[in-house]
């Protein structure tokens, strides 16, 4: 049983190589242990004091979001919440204010829950995670990273140090929204993110849609093409409902999930398109357009 507080990425990687598991905000690891999901690992390395993990850089290539950046920061960041807007939509919905202050993007991504709120927007924005170990760094796409609920392709000695998001094209934007039964301390019943790039005439040139909590991992909707916003939104709704593989559980039946994930996909496309046109749709979309009601 050991607990190491790392202050540099190298220290953290060394601890991982020796068998420790990382803990940042603890909002998944500790809660999961208390609920008997998985016992708390015997050896832990705290990574919440590593300043390098909180880097936030924007270049022509895109954004580099340190794995230790918390949801509160992502929700309110002036660039993320206007250019990489879907990610901010997702972060803004996580837990409660206190959860958002301790929970990190790296933790959310590596926890690999199919219900995570930041996963679908990262997928539609083409994000990659940067995994680092003693033997070097590699970048992995999210579809390759997530292998099942709570499972990733990362090796135990690898630390997620950053999430790289390509710069969105001109006249494009993104949105994420979820079906929720209450406004705080909630988990997505289903959710959908869309990234939309518009042509000069306002029609959709390119669209990506990803779905939350309807499969063992976040999944991207296949086979979507361009067209008017209305047509693309309708196509996204139909394709999302068709491609979803939802389960029935205490939160919702499979039939209800299949229907509502389509609704979320349509609304995500519509909200992303409005943002791409320059209309203000505030973060998070759930409050801006209201799921069930205006805010």
């Amino acid at each position, binding site marked *: 049983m050991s607990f190491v507080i790392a202050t540099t990425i190298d220290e953290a990687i060394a601890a991982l190589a020796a068998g420790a598991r990382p803990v940042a905000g603890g909002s998944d690891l500790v809660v999961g242990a208390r609920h008997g999901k998985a016992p708390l690992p015997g050896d832990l390395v705290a990574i919440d004091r590593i300043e390098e993990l909180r880097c936030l850089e924007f270049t022509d290539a895109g954004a580099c979001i340190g794995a230790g950046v918390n949801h509160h920061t992502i929700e309110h960041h002036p660039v993320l919440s206007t250019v990489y807007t879907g990610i901010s939509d997702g972060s803004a919905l996580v837990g409660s204010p206190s959860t958002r202050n301790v929970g990190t993007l790296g933790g959310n991504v590596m926890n690999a829950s199919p219900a995570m709120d930041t996963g679908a927007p990262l997928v539609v924005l083409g994000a990659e995670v940067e995994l680092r170990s003693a033997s070097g760094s590699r970048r992995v796409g999210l579809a390759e990273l997530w292998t099942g609920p709570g499972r990733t392709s990362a090796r135990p000695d690898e630390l997620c140090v950053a999430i790289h998001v390509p710069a969105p094209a001109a006249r494009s934007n993104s949105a994420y929204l979820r079906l929720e039964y*209450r406004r705080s*301390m909630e988990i997505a019943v289903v959710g959908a993110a869309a990234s939309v790039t518009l042509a000069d005439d306002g029609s959709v040139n390119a669209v990506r849609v990803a779905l939350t909590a309807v499969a063992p991992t976040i999944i991207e909707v296949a086979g979507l093409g361009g067209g008017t916003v209305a047509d693309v939104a309708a196509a996204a709704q139909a394709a999302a409902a068709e491609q979803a593989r939802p389960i029935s559980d205490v939160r919702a039946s499979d039939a*209800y999930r299949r229907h*509502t994930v389509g*609704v979320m996909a349509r609304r995500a496309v519509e909200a992303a398109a409005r943002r791409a046109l320059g209309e203000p749709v505030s973060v998070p979309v759930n409050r801006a357009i209201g799921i069930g*009601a205006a805010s």
Partner: protein
Amino acid sequence: MSPTTTAPRFVRADGPDKVTGSGRYTADLTLTGALVAKFKYAEVSHARITKLDVSAARAIPGVFAVLTQDDVPDVRFGPFVQDRTLFARDVVRFEGEILAAVAAVDVPTAQRALNAIVVEYAPLPVVNDIEAALSPDAPLVHADWSDYGAAGPIVRDRNDASMASIAKGDVDKGMAEADVVVHSRYVADGCHAAPIEPRAVLAQWEGNKVTIWTSTQVPFDARAGVCETLELPANRVRIIVPHLGGGFGGKCGFHYEAHVAALARATKRPVRLVFSRREEFVAPDRRREGIVFDLETGVRRDGTITARKVWLAIDNGAYTADAGFFSQLAAMHALGPYQVPHAFAEAHLVYTNHQPSGSVRAPTAPQTCWALESHTDEVAKAIGMDPVEFRLKNAVATGKEGPSGQVYDEIGLVDCIRAAADGAGYGQALPDDEAIGVAIGWWPSFSVPSGAYVKIDGDGSGQIITGAQECGTGAVMTLRQLVADELGMQAEDFELVYQDTSVAPYDMGATGSQTLFNNGRAAVAAAGQIAEQLKQLAAEQLEANPADIVLADGAASVAGTPSRSVPIAELAGIAAGGELLIGHGSGAPPAPPEVVGATCVGDVGMTAWVAPQFSCHAVRVKVDRDTGVARVLHVSAAHDSGTIINPVGATGQVEGAVLMGIGQALTEGTRYDDEAKQRNAALLEYKLQTCADAPPIDIHFVEIDTPNAGPRGAKGLAEAPNVATAAAISNAIAAIIGTPVRQLPMTAERVWSTVNGIEGSPA
């Protein structure tokens, strides 16, 4: 606010403790050498115990005791039906039933002991459905039910633990006189009180006396339970309640005080039990009961109700707890606060293999009001009448007779309907996905014995020593104001000594909205004795007649001559050298009203209500038809709870109850699997409302002079605001989507299924 307001501000005596974190709750307490208690639960819903071997658990180092029913007096207990023992005896009847209790040096050791207990079962058929349980060939939850003791009026038969009926007039004749008869079926799922503080108990013996610190709402009831099950006299059991972290009825009754006391006696050590959230969901015999309703109302085209006939079956769960009076209470709520000339109600309290039901904030009322008021909107719709007009025409009013034959004296229901509707802007044009739903509700005041002492020491500072229990409502806190007003002093001049059964006289506890109603009377009576003493002392000092002395602003003065005055503190100093300033009070509880014209089976006194409380809630709701998500946009709540003594406390009660009502309406419901085990016994899956969900709530107190009520004409207020919210939300949803959602909670999926005509019982 009301003109009768006496306190411009209200400082809760327990406020600074709770806000700063210096206050201590039961789980915060430690005693030297204390052991950890853990329970071994049945984990199955219905089975015969074929083997229960605790010897291996007892042999583990660090385990001080493992107790089963063999180790405690063999007592069956229960306030209405004596169907329960402390530990399972022969048969387990729900998943949270206790097989054994462990006291160990720490949590891991206690957990190892639980794992070492060997239990083997022979399965028994699981009773998982309320209506099926009533069929003649249903398996019995209690095979020996007829051997159990029960309170006199309780009528029982097999799985029916308490049957009640109310009959007035000739219901068939009344139906025949109707132009339209509307028939409806509704089903309410069970739900939970869900206090934020999971319960905790700490017990310590000194000689043959035991002190138990416990998170109960009813210290004297808890004491009585310990005395009964461990066969002890009342004066050797002391119950102390530190700050209580909410209860909502869930901490009423007698729970685990005896188990922990028995462990402490066996180990000769203090023993402490602290529940996990899951235990809080699964084990207590207090959760809101599921009910199946069959409702029928006959009505004339002019809107006159001619008859109402109701049948309902309540999920009692595996044991009866305090639910024995629920059948008749639910029957009254199903008939409702209406003028019904011909009425018949039949209600059953049905054993199942679910967690036992018990009093949660206005037991049976929110879900029965939901069913009846949803039905009432169907009736109004059937004759093309506006639902508010329909209620104004038929609601009980001053001098009118209710469904059980009680004729009401001064009541304010009609005023409540008008105030709530006006406050909601009823009748305004709204978007087609919004509507305002209206519902009316009622609730009795409970007139019971209660006691308090007041003393003023030589420096003029006072103490109120009361048996009443503060569970967060502010009712006990308000006693300071009542006593201070009586003595011409300030609320801050008094400290409260409360929640200790060995110090204060009896009070029923934080239950039945009764604290201010009854203990307020007691405290005022106690203060009145001191007032008389002070007037006597002042008369001697001021050379005046005691009858001419006025107590105000901290002084005693001669009426009409304020310059002839002496400070109360000075009088207290004089008294400290002679006859002490000590008052004790109880006062006569208001007598119950008469009922004429109705006949009742299983009558437990629920058909005639002293100082009945009335309410109307008008709620604006928006429904997202594509997802079925309903959101409450605004609540207008009007209440006749008599005189409002503490407006700040009263407002808090209504706001909290409305939020609880929204949860019960939309998101809070227990889901059972095929084995009658709870599927959502956790706060992520059992969805309480959060602050972020709270709508604006406008509150209107309809204050009228109420004869035969509590102090200054006050009625209760803790439960009444929880009654009508879900019903009003239901009527708004029905107005938007065109048809009511017939199962409570009206979850998003159920709303969506109703919109799309999907049959079945979705999440």
